[in-house]
C-alpha cells in the first residue's frame, strides 16, 4: 500500500512520464488498442448524458407547449354536467374544449374503415405550441368547421389525399390536412391510436356521443400571465374532486415528462455502462499481457535501483495515458453519436430534439471512462510490486504470489463492486433494482470466469495422446500458460448474453401477445353498440357468417359508498389507505349468468339468489380491485348508476386473466339486476382473414356509424411495430456492447498473437506446415467461440426465464433459431478475427516474423 502511495507522488516527477513514454515505444499500437476497449462504452455514456441534458433543457423551455395550455381539466365522460359546466365557466381564462373517443373512420373513396381516436375540438387549442399540419392552414379549416385533420400514416395506409371525404359516425367531412405533430405527444402514440381531429360542433348531438360512450371530455385553459396554474388549480382542489374532475397543469406535465425521460435515459445508461465494464475487462486483459512482456524490464530497473513505487508509477502512467486517450476518443465519438440519438429516440419524444454539446456531459463521460479504465488496469499492475530484481539474473525465477493472496487485489475488486453498486443505485433510483443490477452484472462476470476455469480444467482432463496432433494442440491451447480462455469466455459470453437476452425478451413479449389461446378466442371486437342496435349488429355478423363469441352489456357506474361510508367521507379520512383513482373512477360493469372462460371463482358463491327483493344485489368482484378497495365477501357497497343508487353485496371473488381477449370486468351483476340502466353492448367475434375483417367493419360502419370495430390482429401488429421501435433503441445501445466485445476480441487476439508467436514459429521451424498451424488455430478459436456463445446463450435463457416470470409475468417461449444464429455468428466472428490477427504467422517465413516482431 505504501508503495502505491509513493507511486502517486512519483507521478508528479517528469522522469516517470519520460520513462513511461520510452518504455511504450514498441507497444504503443497495442496499448492504443487496449485503450480503445473503453471508447464505445464512454461514447454511449457521453451521448446519453448529452442527450439527457438537452432533453431536460427542452422540457424546461417548452413546458407550456408540452401541454398546449396552462391547465387541462378532464372527466371520463362524453359531456359535462351542468354543475361541472358552471364551475368551469366560473374559472375564467381562455378556454378550448375537446372530446376524445374511439370511433370508426370511413374513407369514402375506397371503402376503407379503421378504428381511430377521434378528437372533437372547439376553440384555439393549443394556446402554446402548434398543431402541425400540411398544409399549414388546415388548422384554421378545422376550427371553422370546414374539415378534419387525419394522421399521416393513416392517410398513407388508405391512400387518402387532402380534400377526400371521410365519415366519422353520422358526419361527413373533407380532409383539411395531414396531422404531423400534436404538442406534447409522441409520434409512437399516433401509431398506437391514429388521431383524427374533427370540429366539436359537428359531433355534438350525434349518436357518436351517447350516455355511457367511452369518451373523455377535456377543457383547456389559458390563464392570465400573472396566474400560476398549479396554485390556481390546487386552491380549488376540493371543488375539482367533488365534481369528479381531474386537472393537469403545465408544471405537473413538465415534472411527469421530465421523470419519464429521466427514467428512459437512466435505463439506457445502465445498458451503456455494461459496454464500459466490458471495455474495462479488455483493458485489464491487455495490460496483463503488456505487463507479462515487461517483467524483464522491471527486474532490470529494480536491479539498477528503481524503487517498487517508481516502477509501479511508470506503468501506472502508461495506464493513465491509455485510459485518458480512450476516454477522450470515446467522448468525441459520444458527441458524434449524440447527433444520431435524436433520430433514434424521435418516436418516443413529444418534442423535436436537437443535438447540443455540453461540457459537463463530456467531462462526465471522460471521468467515468478514465476511472473505470484505471480501476481495471490497476489489477494487472499490482503484481509489479512483487517482481524481484533477481529475475534479471535468473530468467526462470518467479516469486509471484497468487493474486488471491494479495489483499490489495481484493480491495480493488471491492472498489469496482462498490462503484458498480453506487452506479446501479443512482441510475435505477430504486436501491433494490440497483443492487440487483450490480449483483447481476458482477454475478455474470463471475459465472463466466468460473465457466472459463471449468473449460480449461475439462480441456486438460480430456485431451488424449491418441487424438490427432492438430486437435490436441488446439484444445491444449485452452489450458496452457498464456491461454485466452478466460478473457474470450468473459468478453464473448457477456456480449452474447446481453444481446440475446434483449432479443429473447422481445420475442417473448410478442409471442405472448400473438399466441392463440384456444379456437374459441375472438380476434375482433365491436363496441359502443347501443341497446337498440344490438340485434342489427348480430344480424350483420350472421350475414357475414361470423360467430358470436361474446355478447355482453356494459353499464357505466361510479362508487357512491363502501361499507356504509360515502366515497367523500373515505377520501376525507386521514387514515384512508384506498387509492383515489379506485374511488373516483368510472366502472363499466356487466351482468351475465355464468363465469367466462377467462375467469376463475376463488371465494364466495357465484350469484346466490337474493333473499328479499330489497336486499343488496349479490355481485362478483375481481380479486385485485377488491383488495384495492379493501372489500371482502359480504361487504356492502352502493353504486351510482347514472344518478340512481344501486346497493350491492360482494358475494364472490374472481380471478381474471386480463391478457385474454374477452370482455373482462371488475364487477359482474346477476342477469336482470341492471335492467333499465342505460347500457352499451360489446360483441366479440372471430374473423379468419383481413378481407373478412374489412368487410365486417365496412358493413357495420355503414349501418351503425357510431359502432366501433377493433381488429385484434391489427392491434397486435401496431403493438409489434411499437415494440420494434423500443427494441431498436435498446439494440442501438446494445450495439455499443457488441462493438466493445469485438474490440476486446481484437485486442485479445493481438495480445494473444504475441503470446503464441514463439510457439507457432517453433512449430513452423520444426516442420509444421502452414495448414497444420492454421488447423491448430482454427480448432482453438472455433472451440472458444462456440463455448463462449453457448455459455452466453445459457445465461440469456436463464435471464429471459427470470424476466418473463418475475417482471413481465408471461410464459417464457423457446426460440431455437436465434440461439443457433448466435452460436454460428459468434463462433464465425471469433474464427475470422483470430485467423486475421495471426495471418503474418501463417504467411511469412518464421525468421522474417521473428525479426519483425522480436
Amino acid at each position, binding site marked *: 500500500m505504501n*508503495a502505491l502511495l509513493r507511486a502517486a507522488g512519483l507521478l508528479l*516527477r517528469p*522522469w516517470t512520464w*519520460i*520513462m513511461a513514454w*520510452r*518504455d*511504450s*515505444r*514498441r*507497444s504503443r499500437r497495442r496499448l492504443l488498442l487496449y485503450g480503445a476497449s473503453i471508447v464505445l462504452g464512454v461514447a454511449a455514456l457521453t451521448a446519453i448524458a448529452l442527450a439527457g441534458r438537452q432533453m431536460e433543457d427542452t422540457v424546461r423551455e417548452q413546458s407550456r407547449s408540452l401541454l398546449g395550455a396552462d391547465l387541462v381539466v378532464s372527466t371520463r365522460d362524453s359531456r359535462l354536467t351542468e354543475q361541472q359546466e358552471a364551475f368551469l365557466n366560473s374559472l375564467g381564462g381562455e378556454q378550448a374544449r375537446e372530446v376524445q373517443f374511439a370511433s370508426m373512420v370511413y374513407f369514402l373513396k375506397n371503402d376503407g374503415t379503421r378504428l381511430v381516436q377521434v378528437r372533437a375540438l372547439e376553440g384555439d387549442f393549443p394556446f402554446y405550441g402548434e398543431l402541425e399540419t400540411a398544409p399549414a392552414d388546415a388548422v384554421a379549416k378545422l376550427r371553422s368547421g370546414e374539415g378534419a385533420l387525419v394522421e399521416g400514416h393513416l392517410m398513407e395506409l388508405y391512400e387518402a389525399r387532402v380534400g377526400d371525404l371521410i365519415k366519422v359516425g353520422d358526419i361527413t367531412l373533407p380532409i383539411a390536412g395531414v396531422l404531423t405533430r400534436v404538442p406534447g405527444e409522441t409520434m409512437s402514440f399516433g401509431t398506437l391510436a391514429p388521431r383524427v381531429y374533427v370540429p366539436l360542433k359537428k359531433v355534438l348531438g350525434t349518436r357518436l356521443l351517447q350516455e355511457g360512450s367511452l369518451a373523455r371530455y377535456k377543457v383547456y385553459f389559458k390563464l392570465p400571465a400573472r396566474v400560476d396554474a398549479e396554485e390556481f388549480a390546487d386552491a380549488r382542489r376540493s371543488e375539482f374532486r367533488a365534481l369528479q374532475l381531474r386537472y393537469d397543469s403545465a408544471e405537473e406535465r413538465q415534472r411527469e415528462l421530465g421523470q419519464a425521460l429521466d427514467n428512459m435515459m437512466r435505463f439506457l445508461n445502465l445498458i451503456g455502462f455494461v459496454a464500459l465494464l466490458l471495455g474495462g475487462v479488455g483493458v485489464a486483459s491487455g495490460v496483463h499481457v503488456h505487463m507479462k512482456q515487461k517483467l*524483464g*524490464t522491471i527486474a*532490470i*530497473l*529494480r*536491479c*539498477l*535501483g*528503481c*524503487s*517498487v*513505487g*517508481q516502477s509501479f508509477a511508470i506503468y501506472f502512467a502508461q495506464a493513465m495515458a491509455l485510459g485518458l486517450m480512450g476516454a477522450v476518443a470515446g467522448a468525441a465519438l459520444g458527441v458524434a453519436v449524440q447527433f444520431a440519438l435524436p433520430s433514434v429516440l424521435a418516436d418516443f419524444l413529444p418534442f423535436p430534439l436537437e443535438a447540443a454539446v455540453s461540457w459537463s456531459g463530456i467531462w462526465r463521460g471522460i471521468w467515468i471512462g478514465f476511472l473505470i479504465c484505471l480501476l481495471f488496469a490497476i489489477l494487472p499492475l499490482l503484481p509489479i510490486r512483487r517482481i*524481484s*530484481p*533477481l529475475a*534479471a*539474473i*535468473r*530468467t526462470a525465477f518467479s516469486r509471484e504470489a497468487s493474486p488471491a493472496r494479495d489483499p490489495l487485489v481484493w480491495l480493488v475488486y471491492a472498489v469496482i463492486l462498490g462503484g458498480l453498486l453506487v452506479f446501479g443505485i443512482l441510475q435505477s433510483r430504486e436501491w433494490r433494482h440497483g443492487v440487483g443490477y450490480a449483483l447481476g452484472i458482477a454475478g455474470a462476470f463471475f459465472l463466466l470466469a468460473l465457466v472459463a476455469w471449468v473449460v480449461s480444467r475439462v480441456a486438460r482432463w480430456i485431451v488424449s495422446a491418441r487424438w490427432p496432433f492438430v486437435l490436441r494442440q488446439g484444445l491444449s491451447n485452452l489450458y496452457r500458460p498464456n491461454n485466452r480462455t478466460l478473457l474470450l469466455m468473459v468478453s464473448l459470453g457477456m456480449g452474447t448474453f446481453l444481446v440475446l437476452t434483449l432479443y429473447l425478451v422481445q420475442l417473448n413479449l410478442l409471442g405472448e401477445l400473438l399466441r392463440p389461446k384456444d379456437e374459441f378466442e375472438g380476434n375482433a371486437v365491436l363496441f359502443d353498440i347501443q341497446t337498440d342496435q344490438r340485434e342489427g349488429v348480430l344480424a350483420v355478423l350472421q350475414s357475414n357468417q361470423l360467430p358470436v363469441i361474446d355478447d355482453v352489456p356494459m353499464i357505466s357506474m361510479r362508487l357512491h359508498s363502501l361499507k356504509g361510508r360515502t366515497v367523500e367521507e373515505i377520501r376525507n379520512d386521514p387514515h384512508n389507505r384506498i387509492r383515489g383513482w379506485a374511488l373516483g373512477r368510472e366502472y363499466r360493469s356487466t351482468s351475465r349468468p355464468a363465469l367466462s372462460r377467462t375467469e376463475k371463482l376463488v371465494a364466495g358463491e357465484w350469484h346466490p339468489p337474493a333473499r328479499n327483493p330489497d336486499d343488496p344485489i349479490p355481485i362478483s368482484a375481481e380479486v385485485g380491485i377488491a383488495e384495492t378497495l379493501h372489500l371482502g365477501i359480504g361487504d356492502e357497497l352502493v353504486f351510482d348508476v347514472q344518478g340512481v343508487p344501486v346497493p350491492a353485496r360482494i358475494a364472490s371473488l374472481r380471478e381474471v386473466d386480463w391478457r385474454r381477449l374477452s370482455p373482462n370486468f371488475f364487477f359482474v351483476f346477476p342477469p336482470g339486476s341492471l335492467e333499465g340502466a342505460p347500457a352499451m353492448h360489446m360483441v366479440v367475434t372471430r374473423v379468419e382473414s383481413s378481407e373478412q375483417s374489412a368487410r365486417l367493419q365496412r358493413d357495420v360502419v355503414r349501418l351503425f356509424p357510431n359502432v366501433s370495430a377493433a381488429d385484434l390482429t391489427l392491434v397486435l401488429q401496431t403493438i409489434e411495430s411499437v415494440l420494434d421501435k423500443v427494441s431498436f433503441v435498446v439494440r442501438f445501445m446494445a450495439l455499443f456492447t457488441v462493438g466493445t466485445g469485438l474490440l476486446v476480441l481484437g485486442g485479445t487476439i493481438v495480445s494473444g498473437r504475441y503470446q503464441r508467436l514463439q510457439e507457432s514459429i517453433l512449430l513452423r521451424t520444426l516442420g509444421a506446415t502452414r495448414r497444420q498451424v492454421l488447423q491448430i488455430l482454427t480448432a482453438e478459436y472455433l472451440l472458444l467461440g462456440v463455448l463462449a456463445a453457448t455459455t452466453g446463450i445459457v445465461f440469456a435463457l436463464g435471464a429471459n426465464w427470470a424476466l418473463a416470470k418475475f417482471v413481465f409475468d408471461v410464459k417464457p417461449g423457446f426460440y431455437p433459431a436465434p440461439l443457433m444464429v448466435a452460436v454460428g455468428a459468434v463462433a464465425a466472428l471469433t474464427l475470422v478475427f483470430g485467423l486475421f490477427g495471426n495471418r503474418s504467422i501463417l504467411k511469412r517465413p518464421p525468421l522474417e516474423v521473428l525479426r519483425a516482431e*522480436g
Partner: protein
Amino acid sequence: MAGPILEVRNLTRVYSTGSEKLTVLKDVSFDLEAGATCSIVGPSGSGKTTLLGLCAGLDLPTSGVVRIMGKELGGMSEDERARIRNAVVGFVFQNFQLMPTLTALENVMVPLELQGDRRAAARGRELLAQVGLSDRMGHYPAQLSGGEQQRVAIARAFVNQPKILFADEPTGNLDAETAESVVEALFNLNASFGTALVLVTHNLELAQRTQRILRLARGILIAAEEGRAARQGAAGS
C-alpha cells in the same frame, strides 16, 4: 584505511520446494576490499549466481550477513536496498539485460536519472565514448551486435561510478574476440574508477585476471585463492 567494501558472513540460502528444502549456499564468508577484484567460479548449480544475487542485495539470505560499505542489507527494506544498488552498485549480466525500448544512450542514463541527476545525458555520452560506441548512441539494443550490447551494459554499470560492480558471466554469450574487447573495457573502467569487481564466470582464464578466486562446489566455498593478477601484483611489488 576504511573496512572492506563487501563483507559476507556465514551466508546460507535454502529454497523450499513444497515439503523439501534445498540448500543452495551454505555458510559462505569472505571480504572484498575497495577497488579489489574477485571472481567466483564453480560448476553449474554450485551456487555462484545465488551468491552474486545475495551479495548485490537482489535476494535475502536464509541466514548470514551481507554488508556493503558497512551497511547490512538484511535489515533493509526492498526500496532501501534499491537505493544502495543505485548509489554504489553496478551490474553486468550474461545476456546484457538492456531495455529493448530504450536507445543505447537512454539505457546508460537510467541509473543517474533514477537519482534525478541532470548530467545523466552528458555522463552517458562520455561513458559510451569510453567503450567506443560514440556513433551508436541512438541505436536500440536490437540494432546492436552482442559485443556492442555488452559494452553498452558496461557503460551503464559504470555511469553512476559504483563502488562495487557485479558481473554475471559477462562474456558467456560472446565469441572469444568480442569477449576479449569487452573484458578489456570492463577492467579498464574498473581501474580508472577504482571500483571493486565481483565476477561470476566459468571461464578460468578470465578468473585468473582477478586478484582473488573463490571456488564453490555444491553451495560450499571450497577454496579462496589468489588469481594471477594478485600474484603478478605481488611479484611486481
